[in-house]
């Protein structure tokens, strides 16, 4: 119910002026209109609540509102914990030993799967594109096309997906297990900042290691593109690599690196946040992990779109 509180304000009269009858009447009319509207509003709401509560439309809308509330809540949690993490980083509150462990986990252990996914994506794209381009007389531009595609998009976005599925899910389930087994509570009771201890090394390792992963994955992708073009379209390595550098500028490399830093930090932050706010037992851990993977995937695509609009429009 809304509450319209209203009262007629007696505006100060200019010195010597009489009572403005039209103004008083206007205020009275406004009050009457507000009162009538207030009663009508409440009446409609009562009718809606009484009769429409069982309707499918009401249920769909109420469900959508619950989903929206959950979405905004998660967004708020990510922003709050992200800000806290950034504050700790700027203050230099970084556990270097833990940071090295997390960097190893983020960058080294994820490498095989990231390189495989980016490499195979390049093979798929090159096998589709190279043959057609050679047929149409554009064989000299296959290298350029593949390099632009991999450096600008495929390298970072596919690495983001690979890191999400491997590292993001593991971060979320780790923190969720710590939450449901009261380990996070124990950290708080021992008067240690859980964000400094849990978030800072993980988020920072994401931001530090992701560019290295993306660079390596992109190199592998470009090389496998050349091999595939040679195998499927008979395009020589020389022709491929001669055109590879044609469409690539420093801006592309810079944006690629910046994007990978943002992707790495975002995946780690989102995964840690979802795990940190887990509740319940084993089911809660599963739900938190799923949520972390879904949110990370979506965030990678949304951030990629933002970068495309900002730098390539």
């Amino acid at each position, binding site marked *: 119910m809304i509450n319209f509180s209203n009262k007629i304000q007696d505006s100060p009269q200019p010195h010597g002026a009489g009572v403005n009858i039209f103004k008083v009447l206007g205020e009275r009319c406004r009050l009457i209109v507000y009162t009538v509207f207030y009663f009508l509003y409440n009446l409609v709401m009562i009718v809606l609540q009484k009769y429409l509560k069982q309707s499918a439309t009401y249920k769909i809308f109420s469900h959508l509102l619950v989903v929206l509330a959950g979405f905004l809540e998660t967004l708020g949690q990510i922003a709050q914990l992200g800000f806290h993490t950034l504050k700790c980083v700027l203050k230099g509150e970084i556990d270097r030993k833990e940071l090295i462990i997390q960097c190893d986990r983020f960058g080294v252990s994820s490498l095989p799967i990231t390189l495989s996914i980016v490499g195979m994506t390049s093979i798929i794209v090159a096998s589709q594109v190279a043959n057609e381009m050679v047929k149409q007389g554009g064989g000299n531009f296959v290298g350029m096309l593949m390099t632009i595609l991999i450096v600008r998009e495929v390298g970072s976005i596919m690495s983001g997906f690979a890191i999400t599925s491997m590292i993001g899910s593991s971060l979320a389930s780790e923190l969720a297990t710590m939450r449901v*087994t*009261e*380990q996070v*509570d*124990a950290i708080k009771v021992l008067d*240690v900042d859980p964000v400094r201890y849990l978030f800072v090394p993980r988020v920072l390792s994401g931001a530090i290691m992701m560019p290295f992963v993306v660079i390596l994955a992109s190199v592998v992708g470009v090389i496998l593109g050349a091999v595939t073009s040679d195998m499927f379209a008979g395009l020589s390595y020389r022709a491929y690599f001669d055109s590879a550098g044609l469409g690539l500028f420093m801006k592309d490399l810079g944006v690629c690196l910046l994007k990978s830093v943002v992707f790495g930090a975002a995946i780690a932050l989102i995964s840690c946040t979802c795990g940190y706010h887990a509740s319940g037992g084993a089911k809660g851990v599963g739900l938190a992990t799923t949520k972390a993977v879904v949110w990370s995937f979506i965030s990678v695509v949304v951030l990629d779109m933002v970068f495309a609009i900002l730098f390539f429009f």
Partner: protein
Amino acid sequence: MSIEVKNLVKSFDDKTVINDISFKVDDGEVLAIVGFSGSGKSTVLKLICGLIPFDNGEVITSEGDIAMVFQYSALFDSLDVADNIAFALKERKDLRNKYSENEIRKIVSEKLELVGLKGIESKFPSELSGGMQKRVSFARAIVTKPNTILYDEPTAGLDPMSSTLIEDYIVSLKHEINAASIVVTHQMSTITRTADRVIMLYDGKIVFEGTPAELLKQETPYTKQFVTASLEGPMQMQA
């Protein structure tokens, strides 16, 4: 006095779990909070140590640390026993650079000896029994010399001998560090062997306050039902 709780109120959604409760615990005193499952005992501990915010009331503690021994130990499973015990010394802002590695090692060894587990520094929590995990959790809790220790069902799920051992540690810690202790439990042996005073919670309110001997006298319907573990009485189990 080490800890005082005044008119504490906590609700979850529409349900009031803690409804205007007040009590005091002095230094060197052990207060047992008893009651059936779901009566809000563990919530009181979480409110006192700040894990969950309360809606209304006051928690007044004298200066110093509050430590908590969790029901399921809550040891960090990725750290070994030594790192678990030394966690606060290594990670807490005000203690981080206070002790050298050698000093930390010595403190850890002392605390482990206090709980009768010398020489298990390099083991991981998963390699320990439930009773041993609980004792490591004790050692971790007292490493910062707290002046208030909260025990959340310290003997739940343990065999009678391990329970006796834990109860003895609670009493010895009381003398050792003169801390105010609150023990949440529903085990009679823990109440009679450790507590100086007992409060009983039901429906978020204190329905009995007295000594363990007074509890055993069963002079009120609440104490009678609790001690005899009867289903008949003023306290109804919640569905």
